[in-house]
């Protein structure tokens, strides 16, 4: 079946460095790819999404890259801060445009640890 998966379960970076979190997906028909951040004791929180017809999208300190050729998604965090420590999930939205509530299929998550 279709799946969304992550390469690395834990990533440790020094404060101030850039972080790159990777994700492989298998459903090439998905409309959107999304990143969520989950801090300890909280529910996941939306960070950024990218439509399937785009290669790159930038937000505040974050950039998402989409490589459809190899079905790869990445989240880059610039100047990583202690507050970025969390579990990051990629997700895909393969729901019908204009249809009912679209399901998000989440990956298994990567833990980002920021060291001082």
């Amino acid at each position: 079946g279709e799946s969304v998966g992550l390469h690395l379960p834990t990533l440790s970076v020094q404060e101030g460095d850039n972080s790159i979190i990777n994700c492989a997906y298998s459903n090439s028909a998905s409309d959107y790819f999304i990143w969520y951040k989950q801090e300890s004791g909280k529910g996941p929180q939306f960070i950024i999404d990218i439509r399937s017809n785009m290669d790159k999208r930038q937000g505040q300190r974050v950039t998402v890259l989409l490589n459809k050729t190899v079905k790869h998604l990445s989240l880059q965090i610039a100047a990583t801060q202690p507050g970025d420590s969390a579990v990051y999930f990629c997700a895909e939205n393969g729901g019908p445009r204009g249809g009912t509530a679209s399901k998000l299929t989440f990956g298994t998550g990567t833990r980002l640890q920021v060291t001082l």
Partner: protein
Amino acid sequence: DVKVTQSSRYLVKRTGEKVFLECVQDMDHENMFWYRQDPGLGLRLIYFSYDVKMKEKGDIPEGYSVSREKKERFSLILESASTNQTSMYLCASSLWAAKNIQYFGAGTRLSVL
């Protein structure tokens, strides 16, 4: 700010009990979702609803049912709790027009003994 409130942070139930997990959102969102989160498995969708009294099965609906009698409230029901339903349960909501942005509650950690 959008607020999604789950009625309990921690619950301990016995095998065979009927369990209700309640979720309320205050932003008039059309869509509501129930997930379970287990280590190494990420978030898996149990059920979702796009309107009052409407529901659709997610990826793992077996052993669960849901109820959405009012727009702001979405309940997850375990008819007869089993030990393999011990998990973290997360409720989320979203606008129909912004389906990628789901707002999550803090979760209910359910232990079935």
